[in-house]
């Protein structure tokens, strides 16, 4: 059942579904067997409804067109009047024309997708700030689309992981190691140490590790954190259960 759902959901509309059926049934698009294709099409649409998918009205319009085509094909054959070249157009021709037209763009979409994928492999860099002129004047002639285009251009750039600034130590510390370092630092100090000063790196990972280490030390009563009042600085002292 699930497989059905996924499959049916993946059609881009009635024309896409019809193309799929034509391919599956190996039918000549210029000589569509009206009865067979209609039955197959209706069974798909039925399944969609049974699965309570939101069947777009276009599918139902196409169903009606197919049924009309099918009933026409079941009517007595007029082809005895072979000379009558002015016979009205076979509705199957119109359908074939639409299917071929749609198929053209469906395939073009596939080629665009390949180009899009290739493009994701190229990167540039942000324009240098010094290139930016600050003396632009006069009326502005830009649209929202220019802005969105620039924005997309930016999202295609790659932001590479920024190296840690200033401090050069890159070695990753575990929370345990960090706890040990903090403990040593606090025990060595006679004065309480300002909470902020316990973080000696601006790197996110290190900040988090240090913070977790402080929390853990508090939980183990190895340190005491105090504050004079709301929003005042936090101070940390070694304490609690020193052994």
């Amino acid at each position, binding site marked *: 059942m699930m497989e059905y759902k996924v499959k049916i959901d993946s059609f*881009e*509309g*009635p*024309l*896409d579904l019809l193309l799929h059926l034509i391919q599956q049934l190996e039918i000549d*698009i*210029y000589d569509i067997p009206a009865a067979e294709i209609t039955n197959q099409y209706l069974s798909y649409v039925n399944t969609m409804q049974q699965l309570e998918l939101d069947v*777009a009205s*276009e599918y139902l319009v*196409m169903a009606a067109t197919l049924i009309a085509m099918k009933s026409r094909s079941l009517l007595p054959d007029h082809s005895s009047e072979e000379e009558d070249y002015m016979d009205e157009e076979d509705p199957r021709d119109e359908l074939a024309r*639409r299917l*071929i*037209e*749609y*198929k*053209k*763009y*469906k*395939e*073009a*979409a*596939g*080629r*665009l*997708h390949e*180009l*899009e*994928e*290739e*493009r*994701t*492999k*190229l*990167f*540039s*860099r*942000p*324009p*240098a700030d*010094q*290139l930016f002129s600050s003396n632009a004047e006069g009326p502005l002639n830009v*649209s929202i*689309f*220019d*802005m*969105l*285009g*620039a*924005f*997309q*251009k*930016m*999202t*295609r*750039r*790659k*932001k*590479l*992981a920024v190296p840690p600034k200033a401090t050069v130590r890159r070695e990753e510390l575990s929370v345990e190691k960090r706890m040990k370092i903090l403990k040593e630092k606090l025990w060595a100090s006679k004065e309480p140490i300002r909470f902020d000063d316990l973080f000696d790196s601006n790197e996110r990972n290190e900040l988090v590790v240090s913070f977790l280490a402080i929390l853990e030390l508090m939980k183990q009563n190895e340190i005491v954190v105090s504050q004079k009042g709301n929003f005042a600085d936090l101070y940390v002292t070694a304490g609690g259960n020193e052994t």
Partner: protein
Amino acid sequence: MKNESIIESLLFAAGDEGLTAGQMAAVLNIQIDELTKILQSMADSLIQDEVRGIMITSFGDEYRMMTKKENAAYIQQLAEKPSPKTLSQAALETLAIIAYNQPVTRIEVEDIRGVKTDRPIATLCARGLIEEAGRADAPGRPILYATTTEFLDAFQLKSITDLPPLEEGDIPMPQEADLFFGRFEEALDE
């Protein structure tokens, strides 16, 4: 060749904003012809030189410095965020119809796709790939859509004429014209 050094500096500084031949020629105070010749030879030698990791691409009348495709995987390794999502099939079909028929109304797109197309059009607008390009001379004066330069950039096209040709598909076509001429010739043979 001092000019090549300056051009490299300019393209580097411009980054993904890119520069037109005219802008660079003005700074170097040389003819555009001469500039494009230098650019072409720089672009060629960058492609051929295995030691180099950047190349010069052009689209529209804009030139831009980019990393070489074969190094993409290495850059991805350091990237903080995954690549932006690629377009859905619905958006791609809509974009294809607009690109090959522009300017075109939403109704015309829906005629070809056989299904409502409001959402793909909204997505494409939000991505800056298509934009409104006036109004059709038809009842209700519907909005016309056309592709943008961002579209060219996103699909690595120099210009809209660079679009891969539309194929008639692999369905064997009984060629009306051939049939006609076939019969015509038969008639002549008699």
